[in-house]
Protein backbone atom coordinates (compact mmCIF):
# COMPACT_ATOMS: atom_id res chain seq x y z
CA UNK A 1 0.00 0.00 0.00
CA UNK A 2 1.17 3.54 -0.56
CA UNK A 3 2.64 5.75 2.10
CA UNK A 4 -0.45 7.87 2.65
CA UNK A 5 -2.72 4.84 2.91
CA UNK A 6 -0.36 3.34 5.43
CA UNK A 7 -0.30 6.50 7.51
CA UNK A 8 -4.09 6.82 7.50
CA UNK A 9 -4.49 3.20 8.58
CA UNK A 10 -1.96 3.80 11.33
CA UNK A 11 -3.75 6.95 12.54
CA UNK A 12 -7.05 5.13 12.82
CA UNK A 13 -5.45 2.19 14.62
CA UNK A 14 -3.46 4.46 16.94
CA UNK A 15 -6.59 6.39 17.87
CA UNK A 16 -8.36 3.15 18.71
CA UNK A 17 -5.38 1.88 20.69
CA UNK A 18 -5.15 5.20 22.50
CA UNK A 19 -8.79 5.02 23.60
CA UNK A 20 -8.32 1.46 24.84
CA UNK A 21 -5.17 2.43 26.72
CA UNK A 22 -6.88 5.35 28.47
CA UNK A 23 -9.76 3.10 29.50
CA UNK A 24 -7.27 0.56 30.82
CA UNK A 25 -5.28 3.15 32.73
CA UNK A 26 -8.38 4.41 34.47
CA UNK A 27 -8.83 0.92 35.89
CA UNK A 28 -5.38 0.85 37.46
CA UNK A 29 -4.89 1.93 41.07
CA UNK A 30 -3.93 5.59 40.75
CA UNK A 31 -0.39 6.84 40.33
CA UNK A 32 1.23 7.03 43.77
CA UNK A 33 -1.02 4.52 45.48
CA UNK A 34 0.00 3.00 48.79
CA UNK A 35 -1.13 -0.55 48.07
CA UNK A 36 1.77 -2.56 46.65
CA UNK A 37 1.41 -6.19 47.73
CA UNK A 38 4.52 -7.38 45.89
CA UNK A 39 6.58 -4.68 47.52
CA UNK A 40 5.65 -5.86 51.01
CA UNK A 41 6.51 -9.46 50.19
CA UNK A 42 9.76 -8.59 48.40
CA UNK A 43 11.04 -6.26 51.15
CA UNK A 44 10.28 -8.85 53.83
CA UNK A 45 12.11 -11.57 51.90
CA UNK A 46 15.11 -9.32 51.20
CA UNK A 47 15.49 -8.32 54.85
CA UNK A 48 15.22 -11.99 55.87
CA UNK A 49 18.28 -12.67 53.70
CA UNK A 50 20.01 -9.51 55.01
CA UNK A 51 20.28 -7.64 51.73
CA UNK A 52 19.85 -3.88 52.11
CA UNK A 53 19.42 -3.30 48.37
CA UNK A 54 16.05 -4.92 47.78
CA UNK A 55 16.34 -4.64 43.99
CA UNK A 56 19.57 -6.65 43.93
CA UNK A 57 17.95 -9.18 46.21
CA UNK A 58 14.97 -9.48 43.86
CA UNK A 59 17.25 -9.84 40.84
CA UNK A 60 19.79 -12.28 42.26
CA UNK A 61 18.07 -14.05 45.10
CA UNK A 62 14.32 -14.15 44.71
CA UNK A 63 14.09 -14.01 40.94
CA UNK A 64 17.56 -15.23 40.04
CA UNK A 65 16.45 -17.66 37.37
CA UNK A 66 14.93 -14.82 35.34
CA UNK A 67 18.25 -12.99 35.57
CA UNK A 68 19.98 -16.13 34.29
CA UNK A 69 17.67 -16.06 31.29
CA UNK A 70 18.28 -12.37 30.67
CA UNK A 71 22.04 -12.61 30.83
CA UNK A 72 21.87 -15.55 28.44
CA UNK A 73 19.91 -13.34 26.06
CA UNK A 74 22.71 -10.80 26.40
CA UNK A 75 25.34 -13.43 25.65
CA UNK A 76 23.37 -14.67 22.65
CA UNK A 77 22.86 -11.18 21.21
CA UNK A 78 26.55 -10.34 21.52
CA UNK A 79 27.43 -13.58 19.72
CA UNK A 80 24.78 -12.89 17.09
CA UNK A 81 25.94 -9.35 16.44
CA UNK A 82 29.58 -10.47 16.28
CA UNK A 83 28.61 -13.20 13.81
CA UNK A 84 26.60 -10.80 11.63
CA UNK A 85 29.44 -8.28 11.63
CA UNK A 86 32.28 -10.69 10.97
CA UNK A 87 34.63 -9.52 8.22
CA UNK A 88 33.94 -11.30 4.95
CA UNK A 89 35.63 -10.66 1.61
CA UNK A 90 36.44 -7.06 2.39
CA UNK A 91 39.53 -5.01 1.93
CA UNK A 92 41.34 -4.35 5.16
CA UNK A 93 42.48 -0.78 5.55
CA UNK A 94 46.18 -0.57 6.31
CA UNK A 95 45.62 1.52 9.40
CA UNK A 96 42.51 3.08 10.87
CA UNK A 97 41.84 6.70 9.94
CA UNK A 98 43.73 8.84 12.42
CA UNK A 99 41.69 10.87 14.85
CA UNK A 100 41.30 14.59 14.59
CA UNK A 101 43.65 16.88 16.41
CA UNK A 102 43.26 16.19 20.13
CA UNK A 103 44.74 18.61 22.64
CA UNK A 104 47.33 17.02 24.93
CA UNK A 105 45.27 18.28 27.88
CA UNK A 106 42.28 16.26 26.67
CA UNK A 107 44.45 13.19 26.33
CA UNK A 108 45.75 13.71 29.87
CA UNK A 109 42.21 14.00 31.22
CA UNK A 110 41.39 10.76 29.45
CA UNK A 111 44.30 8.96 31.05
CA UNK A 112 43.30 10.30 34.48
CA UNK A 113 39.69 9.28 34.07
CA UNK A 114 40.50 5.72 33.05
CA UNK A 115 41.53 4.34 36.48
CA UNK A 116 38.85 6.49 38.16
CA UNK A 117 36.01 5.12 36.04
CA UNK A 118 37.27 1.55 36.32
CA UNK A 119 37.42 1.94 40.09
CA UNK A 120 33.92 3.46 40.25
CA UNK A 121 32.60 0.68 38.04
CA UNK A 122 34.15 -2.02 40.22
CA UNK A 123 32.74 -0.32 43.31
CA UNK A 124 29.27 -0.23 41.78
CA UNK A 125 29.50 -3.95 40.97
CA UNK A 126 30.92 -5.14 44.28
CA UNK A 127 28.68 -3.02 46.52
CA UNK A 128 25.61 -3.92 44.52
CA UNK A 129 23.88 -5.52 47.45
CA UNK A 130 24.42 -2.51 49.72
CA UNK A 131 24.01 0.65 47.63
CA UNK A 132 22.32 1.44 44.31
CA UNK A 133 24.18 -0.61 41.77
CA UNK A 134 24.81 -4.17 40.83
CA UNK A 135 26.20 -6.30 38.08
CA UNK A 136 24.28 -4.81 35.15
CA UNK A 137 24.86 -1.16 35.98
CA UNK A 138 28.48 -1.62 37.02
CA UNK A 139 29.26 -3.61 33.90
CA UNK A 140 27.93 -0.80 31.73
CA UNK A 141 29.96 1.78 33.69
CA UNK A 142 33.13 -0.30 33.26
CA UNK A 143 32.66 -0.72 29.52
CA UNK A 144 31.78 2.94 28.97
CA UNK A 145 34.75 4.04 31.07
CA UNK A 146 37.08 2.08 28.83
CA UNK A 147 35.58 3.60 25.72
CA UNK A 148 36.19 7.09 27.04
CA UNK A 149 39.64 6.51 25.54
CA UNK A 150 38.06 6.59 22.11
CA UNK A 151 36.68 10.05 22.79
CA UNK A 152 39.76 11.60 24.37
CA UNK A 153 42.43 9.90 22.26
CA UNK A 154 41.73 8.03 19.04
CA UNK A 155 40.94 4.51 18.00
CA UNK A 156 44.56 3.35 18.24
CA UNK A 157 44.64 4.51 21.86
CA UNK A 158 41.51 2.47 22.58
CA UNK A 159 42.84 -0.59 20.81
CA UNK A 160 46.06 -0.63 22.78
CA UNK A 161 44.19 -0.51 26.09
CA UNK A 162 41.43 -2.93 25.25
CA UNK A 163 42.21 -6.62 25.96
CA UNK A 164 39.77 -8.02 23.42
CA UNK A 165 40.65 -11.73 23.53
CA UNK A 166 40.56 -11.66 27.33
CA UNK A 167 37.14 -9.99 27.18
CA UNK A 168 35.77 -12.70 24.95
CA UNK A 169 36.95 -15.38 27.36
CA UNK A 170 35.82 -13.44 30.44
CA UNK A 171 32.33 -12.93 29.08
CA UNK A 172 31.81 -16.66 28.69
CA UNK A 173 33.29 -17.39 32.11
CA UNK A 174 30.98 -14.83 33.72
CA UNK A 175 27.95 -16.58 32.28
CA UNK A 176 29.34 -19.97 33.30
CA UNK A 177 30.05 -18.74 36.82
CA UNK A 178 26.42 -17.70 37.23
CA UNK A 179 25.22 -21.15 36.24
CA UNK A 180 27.89 -22.80 38.40
CA UNK A 181 26.76 -20.89 41.49
CA UNK A 182 23.25 -22.03 40.69
CA UNK A 183 24.35 -25.64 40.48
CA UNK A 184 26.15 -25.23 43.79
CA UNK A 185 22.75 -24.35 45.18
CA UNK A 186 21.41 -27.69 43.99
CA UNK A 187 24.35 -29.57 45.45
CA UNK A 188 24.11 -27.93 48.86
CA UNK A 189 20.42 -27.45 49.43
CA UNK A 190 18.48 -29.03 46.60
CA UNK A 191 17.19 -25.92 44.82
CA UNK A 192 18.78 -24.25 41.78
CA UNK A 193 20.19 -20.80 42.65
CA UNK A 194 19.32 -21.14 46.32
CA UNK A 195 21.14 -18.77 48.64
CA UNK A 196 23.60 -21.20 50.21
CA UNK A 197 26.56 -18.99 51.20
CA UNK A 198 26.53 -17.77 54.83
CA UNK A 199 24.48 -14.61 55.20
CA UNK A 200 26.71 -12.46 57.41
CA UNK A 201 25.70 -9.21 59.11
CA UNK A 202 23.28 -6.74 57.61
CA UNK A 203 25.28 -4.04 55.81
CA UNK A 204 28.65 -5.79 55.64
CA UNK A 205 30.51 -6.19 52.38
CA UNK A 206 30.41 -9.98 52.66
CA UNK A 207 26.74 -10.43 53.43
CA UNK A 208 23.50 -11.43 51.72
CA UNK A 209 24.89 -14.77 50.63
CA UNK A 210 25.22 -15.42 46.94
CA UNK A 211 24.06 -11.93 45.91
CA UNK A 212 27.55 -10.30 45.73
CA UNK A 213 28.97 -13.37 43.98
CA UNK A 214 26.27 -13.31 41.32
CA UNK A 215 26.72 -9.53 41.03
CA UNK A 216 30.40 -9.99 40.23
CA UNK A 217 29.69 -12.73 37.69
CA UNK A 218 27.09 -10.61 35.90
CA UNK A 219 29.30 -7.51 36.11
CA UNK A 220 32.16 -9.29 34.36
CA UNK A 221 29.83 -10.68 31.75
CA UNK A 222 28.06 -7.40 30.97
CA UNK A 223 31.26 -5.33 30.86
CA UNK A 224 33.07 -7.76 28.55
CA UNK A 225 29.93 -8.30 26.48
CA UNK A 226 29.53 -4.59 25.78
CA UNK A 227 33.26 -4.26 24.95
CA UNK A 228 33.06 -7.17 22.47
CA UNK A 229 29.87 -5.75 20.96
CA UNK A 230 31.34 -2.30 20.43
CA UNK A 231 34.55 -3.89 19.09
CA UNK A 232 32.57 -5.59 16.29
CA UNK A 233 31.05 -2.24 15.37
CA UNK A 234 34.39 -0.43 15.51
CA UNK A 235 35.99 -3.04 13.29
CA UNK A 236 33.30 -2.74 10.68
CA UNK A 237 33.11 1.03 10.68
CA UNK A 238 36.77 1.97 10.98
CA UNK A 239 38.94 -0.93 9.88
CA UNK A 240 37.23 -2.54 6.94
CA UNK A 241 36.78 -0.95 3.58
CA UNK A 242 33.72 -1.30 1.37
CA UNK A 243 33.38 -4.68 -0.32
CA UNK A 244 32.96 -5.20 -4.00
CA UNK A 245 29.19 -5.04 -4.18
CA UNK A 246 27.80 -8.32 -2.97
CA UNK A 247 25.18 -8.53 -5.69
CA UNK A 248 27.73 -8.92 -8.49
CA UNK A 249 30.12 -11.04 -6.48
CA UNK A 250 27.43 -13.51 -5.46
CA UNK A 251 26.32 -14.28 -9.03
Amino acid at each position, binding site marked *: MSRTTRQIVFLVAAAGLGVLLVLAFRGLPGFGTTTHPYRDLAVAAALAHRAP*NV*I*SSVNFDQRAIDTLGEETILLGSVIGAAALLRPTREMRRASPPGGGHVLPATRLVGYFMLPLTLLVGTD*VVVHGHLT*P*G*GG*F*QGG*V*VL*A*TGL*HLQYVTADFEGLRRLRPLSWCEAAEASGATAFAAIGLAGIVVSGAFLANVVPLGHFGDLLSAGTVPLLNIAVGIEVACG*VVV*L*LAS*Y*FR*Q*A*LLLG*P*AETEKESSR
Partner: protein
Amino acid sequence: MTGVLIVLALTLVGIGGTVVAFTFEPERQALTLSVFGLLLTVLFVVLQAPDVALSQLGIGSAVVPLMVMLALRKIRSGRS
Protein backbone atom coordinates in the same frame (compact mmCIF):
# COMPACT_ATOMS: atom_id res chain seq x y z
CA MET B 1 6.94 19.97 45.34
CA THR B 2 7.79 16.42 44.37
CA GLY B 3 4.53 16.23 42.47
CA VAL B 4 5.45 19.29 40.40
CA LEU B 5 8.89 17.81 39.72
CA ILE B 6 7.37 14.52 38.56
CA VAL B 7 4.92 16.24 36.23
CA LEU B 8 7.72 18.39 34.80
CA ALA B 9 10.00 15.39 34.24
CA LEU B 10 7.18 13.40 32.60
CA THR B 11 6.34 16.30 30.28
CA LEU B 12 9.98 16.70 29.24
CA VAL B 13 10.23 12.98 28.55
CA GLY B 14 7.07 13.06 26.46
CA ILE B 15 8.33 16.01 24.41
CA GLY B 16 11.79 14.46 24.07
CA GLY B 17 10.40 11.17 22.84
CA THR B 18 8.29 12.91 20.22
CA VAL B 19 11.29 14.93 19.04
CA VAL B 20 13.42 11.80 18.66
CA ALA B 21 10.73 9.87 16.81
CA PHE B 22 10.15 12.72 14.39
CA THR B 23 13.82 13.51 13.69
CA PHE B 24 14.14 11.77 10.40
CA GLU B 25 17.88 11.92 9.79
CA PRO B 26 19.55 9.16 11.81
CA GLU B 27 22.70 11.23 12.23
CA ARG B 28 20.78 13.82 14.21
CA GLN B 29 18.74 11.18 15.94
CA ALA B 30 21.82 9.78 17.65
CA LEU B 31 22.30 13.09 19.43
CA THR B 32 18.66 13.60 20.35
CA LEU B 33 18.55 10.00 21.59
CA SER B 34 21.42 10.77 23.92
CA VAL B 35 19.61 13.80 25.35
CA PHE B 36 16.44 11.72 25.67
CA GLY B 37 18.42 9.17 27.66
CA LEU B 38 19.49 11.94 30.01
CA LEU B 39 15.89 13.14 30.46
CA LEU B 40 14.79 9.57 31.20
CA THR B 41 17.55 9.29 33.80
CA VAL B 42 16.28 12.43 35.55
CA LEU B 43 12.73 11.01 35.48
CA PHE B 44 13.87 7.73 36.97
CA VAL B 45 15.72 9.51 39.78
CA VAL B 46 12.64 11.62 40.57
CA LEU B 47 10.57 8.41 40.65
CA GLN B 48 12.93 7.06 43.35
CA ALA B 49 14.64 4.45 41.14
CA PRO B 50 18.41 5.08 41.31
CA ASP B 51 19.36 1.60 40.07
CA VAL B 52 17.30 1.98 36.92
CA ALA B 53 18.69 5.49 36.39
CA LEU B 54 22.27 4.16 36.55
CA SER B 55 21.50 1.57 33.88
CA GLN B 56 19.70 4.03 31.66
CA LEU B 57 22.45 6.65 31.88
CA GLY B 58 25.20 4.38 30.64
CA ILE B 59 23.14 2.59 28.04
CA GLY B 60 20.89 5.29 26.64
CA SER B 61 23.34 8.17 26.62
CA ALA B 62 26.58 6.44 25.69
CA VAL B 63 26.37 2.91 24.33
CA VAL B 64 23.33 3.06 22.02
CA PRO B 65 24.13 6.43 20.36
CA LEU B 66 27.72 5.24 19.80
CA MET B 67 26.45 2.09 18.09
CA VAL B 68 24.02 4.08 15.97
CA MET B 69 26.78 6.41 14.82
CA LEU B 70 29.16 3.56 14.03
CA ALA B 71 26.46 1.71 12.10
CA LEU B 72 25.67 4.89 10.16
CA ARG B 73 29.32 5.37 9.31
CA LYS B 74 29.51 1.87 7.95
CA ILE B 75 26.30 2.21 5.96
CA ARG B 76 27.18 5.60 4.47
CA SER B 77 30.73 4.63 3.58
CA GLY B 78 29.60 1.50 1.80
CA ARG B 79 27.42 3.52 -0.51
CA SER B 80 29.84 6.34 -1.33
